[in-house]
């Protein structure tokens, strides 16, 4: 699939179709169903300094063409990731990207230092998780705090740094430009939209955490719009995601300016989505007489 081979901020990928953080575990969980060597890159579950139990109560709810989640960053912590999990991914020929979350800019820096180990292709800095009390979303909605986190991570890491933006902001371009100026090597978006559902029988929020993050096809128009706005405004590569189910969906993101895409919620519906979207892209390129995916990037015609 050389039509699909790309390099994003120094990360070499066989296809530009990645698995989005939190939706593909550590990749291994999907090993029986997908050839992991054919996935563009695996972004593993959001990792924190200490192990986190995540949120109590119900964690997901289905919504029209989407879902809400409030996992709350349950994860075994960076030490277990490095000691136990990364070695199991080593046999695979696939870039592993670690998604990190902290409560303070310093914690992000500490995570970055701790992850200066072999077997990691890049860091994805999650400044946009809506499901934790401190940090997370708060960083991602303010330009200065977002930039501070990015500088701190850059200072502590030699790896490419992808910064993942929150869509829950007035001006996504301003945040993108701020993290670019702070040294981001790539920008990924969108994380989930903050939402809520109420069970009208029990009169309680469906989710234990009251609010959760909306993902899936429902959010695609918002994601395409933000990718388009950001890709025009920054020089670093943009990784687009939000509601991608089919190769056609992915093409929209490339036309809007994404240099790679990630599949999130669709992995739950179709465990082979990452690989099948790549196959579909290959066919689309052939049908359009194109020789490389880069020929689509940002090619939306605006008159």
């Amino acid at each position: 699939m050389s039509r699909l081979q790309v390099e994003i901020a120094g990360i070499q990928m066989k296809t530009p179709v990645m698995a989005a953080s939190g939706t593909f575990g550590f990749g291994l969980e999907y090993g029986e169903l997908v050839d992991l060597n054919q996935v563009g890159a695996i972004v593993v579950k959001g990792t924190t300094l200490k192990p986190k139990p995540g949120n109590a109560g119900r964690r997901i709810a289905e919504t029209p063409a989407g879902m809400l989640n409030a996992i709350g960053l349950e994860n075994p912590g960076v030490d277990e990731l490095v000691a136990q999990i990364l070695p199991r991914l080593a046999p695979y020929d696939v870039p592993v990207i670690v998604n990190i979350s902290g409560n303070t800019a310093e914690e992000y820096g500490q995570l970055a230092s701790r992850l200066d180990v072999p077997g990691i292709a890049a860091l994805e800095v999650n400044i946009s998780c809506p499901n934790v009390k401190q940090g997370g979303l708060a960083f991602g909605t303010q330009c200065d705090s977002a930039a501070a986190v990015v500088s701190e991570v850059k200072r502590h890491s030699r790896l490419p740094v992808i910064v993942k933006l929150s869509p829950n902001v007035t001006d996504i371009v301003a945040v993108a430009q701020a993290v670019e100026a702070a040294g981001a090597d790539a920008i990924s978006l969108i994380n989930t939209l903050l939402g809520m559902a109420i069970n009208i029988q029990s009169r309680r929020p469906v989710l234990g955490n009251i609010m959760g993050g909306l993902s899936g096809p429902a959010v695609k128009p918002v994601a395409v719009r933000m990718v388009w706005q950001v890709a025009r405004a920054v020089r670093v590569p943009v990784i687009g995601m939000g509601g991608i189910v089919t190769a056609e969906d992915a093409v929209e993101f490339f036309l809007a300016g994404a240099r790679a895409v990630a599949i999130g919620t669709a992995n739950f519906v179709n465990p082979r989505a990452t690989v099948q979207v790549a196959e579909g892209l290959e066919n689309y390129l052939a049908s359009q007489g194109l020789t490389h995916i880069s020929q689509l990037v940002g090619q939306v015609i605006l008159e």
Partner: protein
Amino acid sequence: MPKTAERMPITKNRLIKNGVYELSFHMPHWAYDARPGQFVHIRIADSCQPLLRRPFSIAGTDAATGEVSVIYRVVGQGTSYLTQLKAGDFIDCLGPLGRPFDLECERPLLVGGGMGLAPLLFLARVLCPRPAEILMGGRTKEELFWTDRFATVCENIHITTDDGSLGQRGVTADVLPALLAAKQFDRIYTCGPHAMMQKVAQSARQLAISCQVSLEEPMACGLGACLSCTCEGQDGKRRKVCTDGPVFWSWEVVL
């Protein structure tokens, strides 16, 4: 027992009773491989409405015909859609998923209620010819259409109904102590309403009988990847119901 996700031909989808259906599909590998306690994760629609798969316990397999069956109750959008499928249609199933029941026992007691009886039915078949007994509870006689099915695979069927329309009036917990006192069970399996499983596990602990519970949590991936379905472990660590379970030893999890 590798997992697969494939489109499988439906061989049967029919109403059993009051909004409860039996769905069978042709999947010889699973019919051979699947173990009681495991479940399948079914994609309801090609469109994204409803978006997520739905988990259902395997209620039986037929190695001769290559069929795998689930028994489901219509509760919401997904299960309503399911009823519209007919023999000959294809259905996208992911499975077999999850940790099965442990079968190392001599004299098992099964305790179930509601749709929790579906995995127990498969379990009872596989436990044969061991002398399994089942205690089942329901609101009314109508809910206990299961008796016929268990009759051929269990030595004894004990029944409670809330209204006394079948078996003893009351709930399973009312009958359980006497039953456990009367016979020397070496294993209890339970699946059903949470309150029921709590009581069963408690009785089992008191009598030091090993006990397995089968839990339900909303699931997205079914593969241990998304952490939608975790429950609390007795050791303070969380467990994934989809891969560490759905079957747990009662001492593993906080009920």
